[in-house]
């Protein structure tokens, strides 16, 4: 077991969004989370990454044997959590590569290791960029600056590939991707998975799950997981929508 979320309650601006959520993810597992707009998927993602605006009012989260909620956002990242944002921010004046180097070195520093060798770093980054079919010109551009919607998403997965997390939370990384980009992104995620990275995949579309086969699919509605199943659940949702499941959960 890598991460165990128990009875999680989260409020934003005094409004409760996550209302008693339970979820356990094993090492190397891929869990897909689907659910209606506004059901709390991104809230869950941001909370796990440690965004200060999200207040955990009750519950526990255990991550690799530690109390995750005790860690600040940057400590969580260095402990191996990665968040692929639904809406990646543009940061002009800070190049992608500069940020990644700082991020890698922050990890090394925390682990008591010296800074990464510049040549070694470039070789490593270029290899990952090639894997993500990301043109090298994106390395030196400002973080997401002027990137198209799809390029931003691809850049998120590229960063994940460089940072090699233990647990990746990917918030709608598939939205806005064309078919080819979807395959590239899926390929990137699958490689991480082979390296024992666990993945929480937030998506609205069953299509992504053809490329990244999930071990489990969960439906999040109203701040709770109301149903879990295997990948067939996604097919069922695709065919019938959420109405039936929501009604069943109410009953």
């Amino acid at each position, binding site marked *: 077991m890598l991460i165990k979320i128990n009875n999680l309650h989260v409020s934003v601006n005094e409004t409760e969004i996550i209302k008693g959520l339970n979820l356990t993810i094993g090492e190397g597992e891929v869990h897909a989370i689907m659910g209606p707009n506004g059901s709390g998927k991104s809230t869950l993602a941001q909370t796990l*990454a*440690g*965004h*200060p605006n999200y207040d955990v009012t009750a519950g526990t989260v255990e991550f690799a044997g530690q109390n995750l909620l005790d860690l*600040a*956002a*940057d400590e969580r*990242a*260095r402990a191996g959590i*990665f*968040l692929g*944002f639904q809406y*990646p*921010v543009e*940061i*002009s*004046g*800070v190049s992608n590569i*500069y*940020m*990644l180097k*700082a*991020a890698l070195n*922050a*990890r090394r520093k925390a682990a008591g290791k010296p800074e990464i060798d510049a040549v070694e770093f470039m070789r490593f980054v270029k290899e990952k960029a090639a894997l993500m079919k990301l043109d090298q010109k994106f390395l030196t551009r*400002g*973080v997401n600056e002027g990137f198209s919607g799809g390029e931003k998403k691809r850049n998120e997965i590229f*960063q994940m590939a460089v*940072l090699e997390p233990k647990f990746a939370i990917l918030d709608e990384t598939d939205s806005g991707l064309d078919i080819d980009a979807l395959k590239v992104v899926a390929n990137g995620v699958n490689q991480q998975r082979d390296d024992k990275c666990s993945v929480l995949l937030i998506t609205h579309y069953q299509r992504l799950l053809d490329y990244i086969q999930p071990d489990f699919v969960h439906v999040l509605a109203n701040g709770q997981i109301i149903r879990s199943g295997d990948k067939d659940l996604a097919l069922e949702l695709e065919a019938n929508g959420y109405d039936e499941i929501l009604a069943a959960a109410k009953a």
Partner: protein
Amino acid sequence: MTKLSNNPTELNELKALWQAREQSNSAWLNQLQKHAFDIFSSSGFPTTRMEDWKYTDTRNIATNYPQWLKTQPQTIAHTPALLDIDNSIHLAFIDGHYSPEYSGTKQLPPGIIAGNLGDLADCYPGLLQEKLGKLANNNDSGFVAINTAFACDGAALLLPDNQDLEQPIYLSFFSSTPEITIQPRLLINLGVNSRATVLEHYSSNVAAITNAVTEINCGKGSELTWYKLQDEHIDAWHTAVQYAHLDQDATIKTTQIDIGAGLARNELRLTLAGRGAHAEAKGLLMADAQRHVDSRITVEHTAPETSSRERYRSILADCARGVFNGRILVQAEAQKTAAELTNKNLLLNSGAEINTKPELEIYADDVKCAHGSTTGQLDETSMFYLISRGLNIDEARNILIRAFAGELLTDISIEALRNRVQSALEELEHGHVK
């Protein structure tokens, strides 16, 4: 009639000091000084009742100016904090006086005149008489007038035509005697098609007053890269005005950097007077603690097909106060002028404050002008993005602050200057904790 801000005692003291000053051998210079003192006698120092000085109260400077002008320089106890610039031609001024000991002018190519203004006024009276005091307007403020009234110590740099000077000219003004007033006067003249890089550097390790005036002439087709670093002690007060006049097809690239002083006021006045003249003016103002930094730039386009681009940024922390005033003035004859002014301000704390006012004043009809100003804090979304990648709060802040300084930092061509600015940015980042 402007009401006098100096009280009569201050004025009388200044008058006595002025009369007792060491007179120049040149009658024209004495005349120039006298004329300026007359103007000062009726204007006095500026007050906050004047529109241009509304936000910057110089009463403390006015009160201490005469007293501190009497202070005799002491023997310098520590090596002055000068920049180590490779291969430069260096004119050093300690406590306002030219110091051959700290200067280095061995590399001076023939044909170039560089040295202490007062000395050169005796050696080359004709050359200096032609230029000195021609651009500076004593009516602009009491600070300009009083500087001219005492004009003697300072740097003169005269480049002949077609001189391409590779080595940067480093003009350093360092004050180390407590409670001293220095009044540097600078004259820079580039002949036709000449090229040069100049750095004016003001620093101090004591409470002191600096009141500097610079006059710059850029001849036809010439190109001047000019830097000013104001890195004074926190108990020091600094005022400076630069006048630059550009002939046809001349280019000036200015970068003004404010790091220090308790109160600093800088005024840059560019006149694009020849067809095709071009100016790039940049400013990076940094202040923390209770510092006050006031920066204004006026670009006057008086000839057709001139262009200018002004980019000023300020980063203010703690309870620092910034003032920015940028003014582009396009005269009727300056058709096909292009001008663009941007001012961006980053406030790192809720206690920091800036008053900013970009202005366009256009009398020609065929022009392209734009101006804009933004003020904000570090973007929280960007902060969280970087933190979520594993950077701690300080690292994330540093990166975003540096990104804000952007090309104003990276474009600095003098390495030692760039390093100093970089370390000042770091001090600003660390000096204050959330």
